[in-house]
Structures are given as C-alpha cells and as structure tokens.
C-alpha cells in the first residue's frame, strides 16, 4: 500500500554528539550511522541518553556539539520543520480537542498555502492512512474515546501524514499493557516494511529491541556501549554492561591465569584484550550450562531449588555453595524424565560457554 511517496530512504550520520543538563552529561560523544531503510533500536536503562539522542536527531532539543547528517545534507542546524521528521511520542501527544481525522490531517493543513494539498486530497490521504493503521471508521472519534493501542496508531498515522524523511518513536509501547505491546510490535515491523522508512525507536525493553530491530544501539551514561545486530549483541556482547543489561545471565567471579579462566567447572580461553592474568568476571546464559549425570562428580555441585517445566526447555533454579542467590539454567526436557533433577537433589553442572572480561 502506498502511504508515503516512495522516495529513497535516507542515511543518518551522527558524529560526536554532546549535550549536558547542568553537570550531567546526557550525551557524551555519540557517533554512529543508520543505514537507509534500517530499523534501529536505541536501547538502554533510564538516564542512558537514548531519548536525548532521539530528540537531538529530531531537532526537538538540539545537541550542544556534534553534527547530524541526513544523507549528505547537514541537518545539524535545520529547524524542526525543515527536518521533516515523523516523531511519535511516548504518551502519543494527540490533540485532544481534535477528532482522529483532524489529528491525522493536521500536518497537511498547517503547510504553507503553496505546498498545501487541496482539501479533497487531504481527506483522501487521511482516509488512506486510517485504513493503513487499521482504524477505518473511527475518524470522528476523539482521542479520549480510544484505547491506548488505538491512540498509538493514530499518533503513527499522524506522523506518516507529513511524508517524513525518517520515523522516530520514543518508547512507542511504553504505556501499553503486555498483550497490546506484543500485537503492536508485530504491527510496527509491518509498518516499517511497507513504508521502507529509516526508523529509530527508543526502548528500555531488551526483548523488544532484539525482536524488532535490524540493529541495536546499546547506550549507557550518554555513550554507546555497543552497536550490532540482535544476534551480535546477544552472542558477542562487547562489555560486561551489555551482558548484564541484555539479561538472563549468571555472573561468576573468576581468575584469569595464563589466558585461561575456570568458570563453573570448565576451563575457557580468555581474549588477549582482557589481559593474561588477573581477576575477571564471567557471564553464562541459562542454556550454556549442562547437567553432568556422571557419578564421578565432575563439574560444580549444586542443589536443585525448583524446577519449572514450562516451554520448550525446562528452567531449573540451583543453589551453589558459597554463592548468594540461585542461578537459573535451561536444560532439555528429556533430562527431567530421567528423574535426577528434582528439588533438594544435588546435581553437578558445567558451563559450555562463557563470556569473560577483566574485572573492574
């Protein structure tokens, strides 16, 4: 469906953006490139600068230093209007005294007379957008009469109406309940595919970022920790922070000796950049453990705390001697059938993979 003029999607080059609020550096030298037509997630905890970055790209609150290019055009000093950015706000920011239809038509009606389409064309385009966001028939409603998910769709249709150069979404699903979030996620992916727009969205939900985005920018304290495809950042996290933030890992202290470290009963090589000797931290994901059935007690002894047999793998909580808090591992279903893994039993586990970094 043709909802925007299919001009070629643009590339965004961000170079060394800096912005501070008082003594707090919200953006501390951020540089990256968004490829034309890419769906990019800005992921990070609150206060990491992801929303500040999005607003700087939109021109809503300019950065103090650094440059932003749209293709080869310097957009750094362009005004909000000139940038022509479709921006979707976390709390929708729909105009409450206007109908759904008037909200969507707003961006077309406020154009200078020379560029403004005829009213009949505005009507036609707004109708088409309404169909596109699956809200046909609701044009006479007011925002207060819509559900959260519907409001978000109106906000998106309104942003698309101005035929934006790029689409920016600030925590687009942040204010919605879990079920609607899931639906809208899939839908946003469709919208991105059909419009072909270069799209950036901010989220603090790692699952959302990894599921939706072509690439993920992980931010912390106003800096970029890592940029990569979802599998890159998940499989090869660049820093301990990325490991922990992407979630669901067990952290172990270890000692690196001669370029190797022992983690949870196994010996792993350590990359040279982390030093050949010294204290280290290791991260192991739940599916990177195995339970050793061998009677001779290889691996780490652990007491089974609970077994949750939901989903394709079984999640087992284990308590290790000398360690605060249980660890979680995921094991194949078949293993449970053997009857060894039951609460209060002692089993032996071993890590099959680990990411090891120099400590500190």
């Amino acid at each position: 469906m043709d909802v925007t003029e299919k001009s070629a999607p643009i590339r965004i080059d961000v170079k060394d953006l800096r912005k501070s609020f008082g003594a707090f550096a919200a953006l501390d030298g951020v540089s990256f490139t968004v490829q034309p037509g890419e769906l990019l997630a800005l992921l990070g905890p609150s206060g990491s600068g992801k929303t500040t970055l999005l607003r700087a790209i939109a021109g809503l609150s300019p950065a103090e230093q650094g440059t932003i290019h749209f293709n080869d055009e310097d957009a750094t000093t362009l005004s909000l209007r000139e940038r022509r950015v479709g921006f979707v706000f976390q709390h929708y920011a729909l105009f409450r005294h206007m109908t759904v239809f008037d909200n969507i038509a707003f961006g077309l009606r406020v154009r200078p007379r020379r560029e403004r389409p005829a009213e009949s064309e505005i009507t036609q385009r707004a109708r088409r957008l309404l169909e596109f966001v699956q809200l046909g028939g609701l044009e006479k409603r007011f925002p207060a009469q819509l559900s959260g998910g519907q409001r978000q769709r109106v906000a998106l249709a309104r942003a698309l109406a101005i035929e934006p150069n790029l689409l920016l979404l600030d925590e687009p699903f942040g204010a919605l309940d879990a079920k609607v979030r899931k639906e809208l996620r899939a839908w946003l992916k469709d919208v991105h595919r059909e419009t072909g727009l270069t799209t950036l969205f901010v989220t603090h939900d790692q699952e959302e970022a990894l599921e939706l985005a072509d690439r993920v920018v992980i931010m912390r304290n106003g800096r970029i920790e890592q940029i990569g495809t979802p599998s890159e950042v998940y499989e090869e996290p660049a820093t301990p922070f990325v490991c922990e933030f992407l979630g669901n890992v067990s952290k172990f202290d270890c000692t690196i000796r001669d370029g190797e470290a022992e983690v949870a009963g196994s010996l792993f090589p350590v990359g040279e950049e982390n030093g050949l000797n010294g204290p280290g931290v290791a991260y192991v994901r739940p599916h990177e453990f195995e339970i050793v059935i061998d009677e001779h007690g290889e691996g780490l002894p652990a007491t089974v705390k609970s077994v949750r047999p939901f989903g394709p793998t079984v999640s087992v909580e284990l308590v290790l001697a000398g360690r605060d808090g249980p660890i979680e591992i995921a094991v194949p279903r078949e293993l449970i059938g053997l009857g060894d893994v039951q609460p209060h039993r002692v089993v032996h586990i071993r890590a099959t993979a680990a990411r090891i970094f120099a400590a500190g």
Partner: protein
Amino acid sequence: MQFISTSPRLANVSEPLTVRFLLLGLTLVYLLAMLVLPLGVIFVEAFRKGYETYAASLLTDDSIAAIQLTLLVAAIAVPANVVFGLAASWSIAKYDFKGKSFLITLIDLPFSVSPVVAGLIYVLMFGAQGYLGPYLQAHHIQIIFAVPGIVLATIFVTFPFVARQLIPLMQAQGSDDEEAALSLGASGLRTFFSVTLPNVRWALLYGVLLCNARAMGEFGAVSIVSGHIRGKTNTMPLHVEILYNEYNFVAAFAVASLLAFLALVTLGLKSALEWRYGGELAVSRGH
C-alpha cells in the same frame, strides 16, 4: 465554592445520624443567614418603592456613567490579564529558569496584599506628591483621580486570576502537544492558536469569569485612586457607597442589585463550566 461528593462511607465508621443532621443543619442555617438572606435583602430593598423608582434610580446620569466606567475598566483589565496570564503561565510551565517559584509567589501577591495598599502604591507612584508626579503634571498626564489610575489599580488586584488557573493546567499538560505540532510543520503562532489555546480554553474562560467579577466589583484599591468624582471617576461599587452615604437607599440598593446580579450570573456560568468540564478544570483548582 464547590461541593464534592465523596463515595458513601461504611455505616460503622460514620457518625450517628443525629450528628450528621446537626452538621448539615448548621451549615444550611449559616449559609442562609450569612449569604442568602443578605443577597435577598438587596433585591427587596432595591424594589421597595416599586419598579419605576428602581428603573429611575438606575437611569440617572451618574448611575449610567458609573456603569459605563465599570464596563470600560473591566474591558481593559480583563484582556490585559488574559495576555499577562497566558504569557506568565506559558513561561512558567514550558521553560525552566531560576527564580521560577519566586515568580509564582509574586503572581500571588495581590491575593495577600490588602487592596487599599495596592491603591496607595499607585498614589505614591503617580500622585501629585508621588515619584512621577512632577513629570506627569508637566506633561498634563493625569493618572490618579482619573480613569488610568482606576484601570491600573484594577489590573493589579485582578492579575492572579487568569494566571492561577492556567499555570497548574499547563504544567500538567507539558509541552508534548506543542512539540508534536511543531514537528508536524506548524508555525509557532499556529501551534499556539491550534493546540495550546484549545488545550486550556475552559480553564482560561473560568479564569476570565473570576477576573471579570473581581474587576467589576473591586472597591478598596479603586476607592483610593478614584477621587470619587461623580459622573467621571465613580465605578459602580463606589457609586453604591456614595448613594448609601447620602441616605439614598433605594438607588444604592438598585445599583448594588446590578452587582449582585452579575455575581449570580458569574456563579451560574462557573458552575456550568465545572459541571461540563470538571475533569479539565480539576487540575487547575489546586489552590
């Protein structure tokens, strides 16, 4: 004044029925004695000598002049305070700057200063013996004992009304809507008229109503700067006082009845607004 209905409490934590009736009865008697009866008396006294005397006393030259002056003063003071109120609440709600809470306190000043003091300030500034007196006299500009002084004093007394209604509402609404409009390509002016103003329209109207009622009814500050020149610098409240002091009770109550009628209309419109747009107004009634 507004009565807020609360959900009924559980019977076992509620006061006995007699206590409730007693409290309710006390409130009603008090309101009746202190508000309703005096208000009724105004109308009774005004019409004591019949409709024709009532009309005649309203249609004297001095009374008409007073009514005209009151309307003129309100017609200047209210728009001035709408502009000021919008500007002040916009800057307070949408920008961050040092001394913001001081500015908010300052806006409340006329609520806490006696209107008489407000009047005296203007006499001290613009009066014949005041700081600017010699300059004004040299240029034949009269402010005190003239219409400009009355307008200034009225603006001073009424300026919190609009701002106080708008500030909390604008603060609660934030700037997202404006940013959205701007990002969609609207100009600043267009954004203000299509987005900001409609967002606060009912609170603004509410503020205008209160501001207008006070502007027309103001006595203290205006009394100091007016000089009580009949037919020239007498507003309706001042005119009532003069008539009363001359023992012209029917005329005094006739003019007073107009003011009372204005108050009733204001009250009615205010209640209508609250009833219809209660949700939007609730935010701004934090004080």
